[in-house]
Each structure stands twice: as structure tokens, then as C-alpha cells.
């Protein structure tokens, strides 16, 4: 081999070595980036490394939520910002965990809110565009589409493109969920999918499945129904449940609806609550007025009505309480509905002086007025009545102890202390200790 050839070969080898080194370095960087993305999947970190010095009381952060400001006391040695696709992937991975075996609507909503807030979905146009693109893309995976739809709900996806993407994705998710219902392992996902879609068609399907399911299969269906948000769909379920021969099954459906309504009313969105109220009014009124026929459903109807319109529920409750043959369960529910109303104290006064009213009626009236500010004279009468009731050894006596503790009078608290310490009835001792514990806690004291 000539010297020229040897030199050329050496140069080639050197070139190859340099290329390999550069390639290896590039891969190392990519690995670090991948590691960073997996970190972001578990939380809000988007920067590769950060070291934190002592933080001031008020710490400014950037609007993109997890990018800490480089001003102030934060030192950053490197930063990798996630692309919209990577952000979406991280969100979906977190939601996948939320759809685990311990799924409940409450837990899922908490996790969805956390994911949306942490990744700034509601304000990030680029991520929302990516979300639209993903919703528009063909897919047969029910769980995947449902997670995308949940994110779309959390991110408050809007605009013409968003609306169209949602419609086509819902259609695909419906088809996929229907197809998966009979496939054992995918059934849970399919049910959650139907509930997450939440339209009349999907919810009616859930209702049918629940109405026909053997008792052992009811739980996931009930959970799915409890996560429905659409008022029309819920109203249809309630109306149809009134025709069900099996009262237990109907009660399950009403319980799920109550849970769903409670979640919506707690959200504080007045427009949604009004819409829900308008949709459910018919079924609720019908059920409350037929209280003798299905008392357990009437009880639930009053509870739901109280969530949506306390004033209307109070009027209904007053009508119920005028019925001398009202069952104790319905009376208890009616008393509860009257809480916070303007005539609670008037009714309490009547119950305390009415010779026909039994201990239970008096106790219910007192418990119903527990959180009202009472005039001193009435308060004294209530305390005396409760002290009498607390001498009883049964559940009424123990309820009286709890009510006494709630009134927070020092003399009554001293009585509770003596019962907790020296009482002869062990259950009364436990109730007194328990009631005192709550009465003396800082948490409760401020609420009453």
C-alpha cells in the first residue's frame, strides 16, 4: 500500500471516529430530553435541572405555569420546553392513571382539573390546536378518544374547529365503546367512555344496561351514570326509572343522578345549574307529588330539588310536613330541606310547645334549626329540651348530646365532659367524647 493510500485510509478512519463521537453525543442529549419528558409526565417540571435557593415569600412565576422565572432567586442550568404534542402526551398519560381500577367521578374530576391546570391547557392555543388535530385523527381506541374528549372538556375547547372535532370524535368514540361493551377486559373503559361522552344516546344506553344488569354487575354502571353531566339525559333516566318495577334499581339510578347534580351545583356555574333545573323539574315534581307511591324516590327527589332550588324544595317540604301520616324518613328529609329557610325557627317553636309532638319530632326540629341564630329565650328552651333528651339511653339521647355540643354553651359542654368521663352508659360516653371533640376543634367552632 502506498503512502498516499495509507494517508487516505487514516483520514477516513479519523473522519469515521469523529462522526461516531458526534452521533453518540447527540443520542446522549436526546436521552436526557426523554428523561425530562418522563419527569414532566409525573408533575409540573419542564426544566431539565433546577437548583433552588431560599425562596422569598412572594415568588413570581411565568404564565406557562411550570417555567420558573429566571429572575429572583431561581438558577437554571438548562431548560427544555415541551412541544404541544409532548404536553398533550404528558396530559394523556396522567389521565390514563386517573382511569385506573379505583376510578370514581370525583377522583377523575380532581385529576382532570389538576392536569389541565398544571399544563395550562385552558390558555394554551398551540396545545388546543394539537388537541383538535388529535380529535380529528382516525382512531378506534375507545379509551384514547375518551381521554382526549375529557381533556377537551377540561380545556374548554371551543371555536368552529373545536366543535367539529368534538362531533366527529364523539361519533368514533361511541362506535368504539359500543364495540367494546362485550369484550370483557374493555367493558369498563367502554362504560366510562359512554359516561364521558354523556349525550342522550350514550346515557340512554347506560340506563338500559343498568336496568337490565344483574346485581353483581351494577357498580361500574352506577359509577358511570353518576359521572353524567347532561341534564336532558339525566331527566330521561329519571323519568324512565319511574316505570321500573324494581324500586331498588330505580333508587340506584336516582342516587347516581343526585351525585351528578351535587357535583354540578358545587361547581358554581349558575348557567349550567339553571339548565339542569329546567331539564329535571318535570321528573322531580312528579316524583315528589307521588310521595305515597314511591317514598324512597320522593325522598331523593326532594334532596335533588333542594340542590337545584332550595326555595322550591322548602315549599314542597312544608306541604309534606302538613301531612300527619308522613313517614319518619320523609319527615327527616323535609326537615333537612327546611334548613336555612326563614320559617325554621317558627316551626321549631311550634314543635317545642306542641303536646302532640313526640321526642323524635322535637329532635328533628331542633336539628333542622341547629345552624340558625336563635333568640336567647328560644335557645334556652332548646337547651333545656336537649338536656332532657340527653338523659335517654338510646340513639335519640346520643343525638341530643351532639346537638348540645353544637350549641357550644359552656354549661352544656361541662355536662358533656362529665358524661364522657363518668357516664354509666358506654355508648353515651363515646357519643359525648365524640361530640366534645368536634365542638372543641378549631375547624368546627368557627362554622357554627
Amino acid at each position, binding site marked *: 500500500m502506498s503512502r498516499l493510500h495509507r494517508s487516505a485510509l487514516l483520514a477516513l478512519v479519523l473522519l469515521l471516529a469523529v462522526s461516531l463521537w458526534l452521533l453518540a453525543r447527540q443520542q446522549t442529549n436526546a436521552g436526557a430530553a426523554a428523561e425530562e419528558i418522563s419527569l414532566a409526565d409525573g408533575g409540573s417540571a419542564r426544566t431539565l435541572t433546577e437548583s433552588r435557593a431560599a425562596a422569598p415569600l*412572594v415568588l413570581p412565576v411565568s404564565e406557562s405555569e411550570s417555567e420558573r422565572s429566571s429572575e429572583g432567586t431561581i438558577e437554571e442550568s438548562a431548560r427544555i420546553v415541551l412541544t404541544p404534542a409532548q404536553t398533550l402526551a404528558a396530559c394523556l398519560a396522567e389521565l390514563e392513571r386517573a382511569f385506573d381500577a379505583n376510578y370514581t367521578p370525583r377522583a377523575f374530576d380532581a385529576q382532570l382539573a389538576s392536569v389541565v391546570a398544571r399544563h395550562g391547557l385552558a390558555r394554551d392555543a398551540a396545545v388546543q390546536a394539537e388537541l383538535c388535530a388529535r380529535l380529528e385523527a382516525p382512531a378506534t381506541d375507545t379509551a384514547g378518544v375518551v381521554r382526549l374528549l375529557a381533556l377537551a372538556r377540561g380545556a374548554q375547547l371551543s371555536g368552529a374547529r373545536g366543535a367539529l372535532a368534538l362531533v366527529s370524535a364523539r361519533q368514533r368514540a361511541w362506535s368504539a365503546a359500543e364495540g367494546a361493551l362485550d369484550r370483557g377486559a374493555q367493558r369498563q373503559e367502554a362504560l366510562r367512555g359512554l359516561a364521558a361522552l354523556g349525550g342522550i344516546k350514550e346515557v340512554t344506553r347506560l340506563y338500559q344496561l343498568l336496568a337490565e344488569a344483574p346485581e353483581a354487575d351494577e357498580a361500574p354502571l352506577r359509577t358511570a351514570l353518576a359521572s353524567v353531566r347532561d341534564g336532558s339525559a339525566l331527566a330521561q333516566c329519571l323519568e324512565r326509572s319511574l316505570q321500573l318495577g324494581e324500586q331498588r334499581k330505580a333508587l340506584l339510578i336516582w342516587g347516581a343522578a343526585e351525585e351528578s347534580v*351535587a357535583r354540578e351545583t358545587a361547581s358554581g356555574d349558575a348557567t349550567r345549574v339553571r339548565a339542569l333545573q329546567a331539564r329535571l323539574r318535570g321528573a322531580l315534581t312528579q316524583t315528589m307529588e307521588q310521595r305515597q307511591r314511591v317514598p324512597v324516590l320522593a325522598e331523593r327527589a326532594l334532596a335533588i330539588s333542594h340542590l337545584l332550588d332550595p326555595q322550591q324544595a322548602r315549599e314542597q317540604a312544608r306541604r309534606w310536613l302538613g301531612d300527619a301520616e308522613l313517614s319518619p324518613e320523609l319527615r327527616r328529609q323535609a326537615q333537612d330541606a327546611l334548613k336555612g329557610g326563614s320559617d325554621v325557627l317558627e316551626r321549631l317553636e311550634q314543635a317545642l310547645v306542641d303536646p302532640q309532638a313526640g321526642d323524635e319530632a322535637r329532635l328533628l326540629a331542633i336539628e333542622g334549626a341547629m345552624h340558625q341564630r336563635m333568640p336567647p329565650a328560644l335557645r334556652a328552651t332548646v337547651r333545656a329540651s336537649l338536656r332532657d333528651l340527653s338523659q335517654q339511653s338510646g340513639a335519640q339521647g346520643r343525638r341530643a348530646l351532639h346537638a348540645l355540643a353544637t350549641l357550644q354553651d359552656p354549661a352544656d359542654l361541662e355536662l358533656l365532659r362529665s358524661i364522657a368521663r363518668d357516664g354509666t352508659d358506654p355508648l353515651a360516653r363515646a357519643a359525648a367524647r365524640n361530640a366534645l371533640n368536634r365542638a372543641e376543634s378549631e375547624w368546627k367552632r368557627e362554622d357554627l
Partner: protein
Amino acid sequence: MSRTPFLGLICIFAALAGCGKNSGSTGGGSTAVPGELALLITDAPFPHDAIASAHISIDRISIDRGLEQGDTTRIVLHDGAPLGFELTSLRNGAIGEVLRTPVPSGDYFRLFLNFSSVELALEDGRVFRSSDGSLQVPELGPEGFVVPLDTVLRVPEGDWARLLLDIDLTRSFQPLDGAFEDATAFSFQPVIYAVMPGQSAEVRGVVARRDSQGGMHPVDRATIFFLPIGVKDLDQAVASTASDADGGYCQLGLPPGAYRVFAIKGTRQTWLETARISAGNYAAVDLTFD
């Protein structure tokens, strides 16, 4: 029953009190009068036959008004020595104060908790620690875990507002490899609900058994589940707790609603249904095994 032994909630209470001193504006349209923050902790109900202790440490706590309000100015409430909580020692309404610190008055929408260490010890002697990797704690970034508040935490000028955090242990502690009984590692994936005291419900009472002469005796260590009305499957429980030695129990922080309160001890079980418990109210429910 397929339920894992981690059942129930722990609660952290936050109390804010006005102290009437002026400070600079914190943006977001808030007022300038600061308040004071007190964090308290209570109620870690477990079934006690399996858990010896569950300890968490939090080294950083902060709050902000949230992205929706366009103000992510972070108010750091604590940053330093870890604050430790032994969850099993706080049960049935017992409350321990964690910290008090001044904060600007105004509205807050998110709370951030950074868990510096977590340790879980079982009655059979197994111990899982985040420090040795047998209990995995997710990397959550410098501010830690974000807790979105269901409703606004409003700190009025010179007045009180408080916050209850329920850490849902059923979902927060997960065995990594197989069933709970055989697991060699756990992960801690906090699932936390935030509620305000005046907007949550409470159930308390006594669990007892009736003897053949009709006498009543308290039942300790009974597990009590709070189920939606009409539901029998314990896996669907909204919360759970356990009775004390004298049979008493108390569950805080429940979403307002009606509940089936279900007690179980060994092979015995019993239940009662409550009327709807409205926000800020309680129901006294005594349960009896016949």
C-alpha cells in the same frame, strides 16, 4: 372483597385569620390587608389490622390564584424544615395544627404541596420508604403537587377562611408489584380533594353490638364506609374510617349529600342511610350489629 387495606382519608386544615396589618398589593385585584394562615391536620382513618404507621413530610407549601385568574404569583407559606405528619395518630376528628403564617388577603384557587419523604410501615414488619426507593414518590417539580381547589379559598380582610384537604389514601398508596399482601414496593401518587369547612358534610356516631340480653356494647376497629345511596359495593365508597376503642367514629370533609353508612367488623355488617346532609352540617348515625 377486593378492596385494598388503605381505606379513607386524611385531612389537612388550613385556617386564615386577619391580622389587620397593611402590606403591598399582591395583584389579581386583591386587597392589601394580610391575614394569617394556620395549617392543621386530622383524621387519618385506616383499618388498623394492617397498618402500623404512615408518615409523610412536607417541606414546601404554597398557594396561588391560578391560571384562570391570570395571576400565578406564588405565595410561599412554608419552605424549609420538613413538617411531619403521622397519619395513623390523627383519627376521627382529632386535629393537629401544622403551621400559622401571614398571607395576603384575597382569593386563592390552587395549593401546592411538596412531599419530601413518605414512609409506610405495616403490621407484619414491612416498611416502605421513599428514602430507599421502596416507596416511590413521583418527581413533581420544584413546587410539588398541585391541588386545585373546588371552590375559591377566600381570605377576607381581618377574617377567617379555612381549607380542608382530603388525601385519599385508597388511591394515593398503590402496591407496585401485585397485591397489597405480597407487595415489595409501593408508589405514592397523591389524590387530594380540597374542600371548605362550611361547604362539606360530616357524619359521626357510635358502632355497637347488641348482646343476647339486649345490652349494647361499643365495637372498636370496625371499618365504616360512606357509600352513595343505593350502592352496596364497598369499592364505590366515597370515604371510610374506623371506630375508636369506645366505638365512636367521625368522618369529616364529605361532599354534601345522602349516604349509606355501612359498618363491617369481621363477618358482621350493618348499615343505615342518612337524609341529605347539607353543606356545613352533620348527621349523627349510630350503627348496631345484632
